[in-house]
């Protein structure tokens, strides 16, 4: 059976791509952000995942307003990044895992999530930047990916409760996968931020810290919020929190918080990073 090694949630601000390109990890502005990542990188190196299942939001690279799925699952053998028009360099292609993708799709549809399936799909900065932060150094990616996008561009958005249930369903799919892969679940975006209008620059640190705390032991607490609540409390683009909720919900049973980091600002955004491990993985290691 497959092993779910844990989940990592991380911000994906485009400016991180420029900072990586220019090697600004030690720059005084960037250092407090990048300093959060080595513990997550070390955990990944020890957990040795073969596959990353990634919950994220496409910002118009693959899906535009002509056709905007609420949830879409990649089922391609390869995923490419492309010019998003805002000047960050593209990254090497990712290998897919079509058999696992279709197993996830079959489980989701059986659980009444009517997802869009994509045998061709471009992946944007919301996937590539967290990958680059967690597997630094460039070259070929050491994991295959299963990308899962959630509409965050055009309201009505799904609710946090729906995101939570989506994550649970993906978790059931992974737990029932007969392969022997080691699987990590990623959730990208957030935390509080607003890019547009007179309220741009909005940051809600108490709300962010409450969410990071709740995600460890009581993630269901966050499902009482609506998309409206998230816009009010976390900013117009703070609804990306839903990818964190989905990733956390994919883990079976109780979890241990391995690492957490929070820094304001990266550009307009409160940047967060968390690493979770299922208690079952901790017990298995001790045995």
């Amino acid at each position: 059976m497959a092993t779910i090694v844990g989940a990592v949630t991380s911000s994906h601000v485009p400016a991180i791509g420029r900072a990586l390109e220019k090697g600004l990890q030690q720059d005084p502005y960037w250092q407090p952000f990048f300093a959060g990542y080595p513990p997550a990188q070390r955990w990944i190196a020890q957990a040795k995942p073969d596959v990353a299942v990634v919950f994220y939001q496409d910002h118009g690279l693959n899906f535009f307003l002509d056709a905007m799925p609420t949830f879409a699952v990649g089922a391609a053998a390869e995923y490419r990044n492309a010019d998003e028009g805002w000047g960050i360099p593209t990254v090497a292609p990712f290998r897919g895992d079509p058999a696992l993708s279709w197993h996830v799709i079959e489980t989701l549809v059986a659980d009444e999530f009517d997802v869009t399936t994509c045998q061709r799909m471009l992946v944007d900065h919301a996937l590539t930047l967290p990958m680059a932060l967690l597997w630094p150094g460039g070259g070929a990616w050491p994991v295959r990916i299963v990308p899962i996008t959630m509409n965050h561009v055009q309201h009505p958005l799904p609710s946090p409760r729906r995101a939570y249930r989506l994550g649970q369903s993906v978790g059931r799919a992974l737990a029932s996968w007969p392969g022997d892969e080691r699987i990590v679940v990623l959730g990208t975006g957030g935390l509080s931020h607003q890019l547009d209008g007179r309220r741009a620059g909005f940051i809600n640190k108490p709300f962010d810290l409450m969410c990071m705390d709740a995600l460890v032991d009581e993630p269901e607490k966050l499902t009482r919020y609506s998309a409206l609540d998230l816009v009010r409390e976390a900013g117009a683009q703070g609804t990306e929190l839903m990818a964190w909720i989905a990733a956390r919900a994919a883990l079976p049973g109780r979890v241990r918080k391995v690492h957490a980091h929070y820094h304001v600002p990266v550009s307009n955004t409160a940047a967060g990073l968390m690493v979770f491990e299922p208690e079952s993985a901790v017990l298995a290691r001790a045995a």
Partner: protein
Amino acid sequence: MPGYNDAFKDIPGTTVFDATQSRLGYHLNMFCMSLMKAENRAAFKADERGYLAQFPMSDAQRQAVLDRDYNRMIALGGNIYFLAKIGATDGHSFQNLAAKMTGMSEEAYRSMMIAGGRPAQGHRSRSDPSR
């Protein structure tokens, strides 16, 4: 019947990109999406009016683009993720655009962010500014 966006209208300084905005801004956002190609960015920079004329946008939308009036573009249906491609074509970051929209200088906005950002307190509700 109250519309979807009505529930969001109490949030100050915020335009939620809903069906009304998406329908209004479809071609403005299509223009923005065309800027994902380097040759289109070059063509736009070479002749902005001529380039915009290819898209069935309203005159007000074209003028807002020419003026780089991002709040106006948002009001006319632009979505910030797509509008940012205009900013990038001009060599400007998201932070620069955000500063413009708030009416602050880029330096003042950057300082506000370094100091922790715009606080939630007082920016949750038009009807209750104490929240």
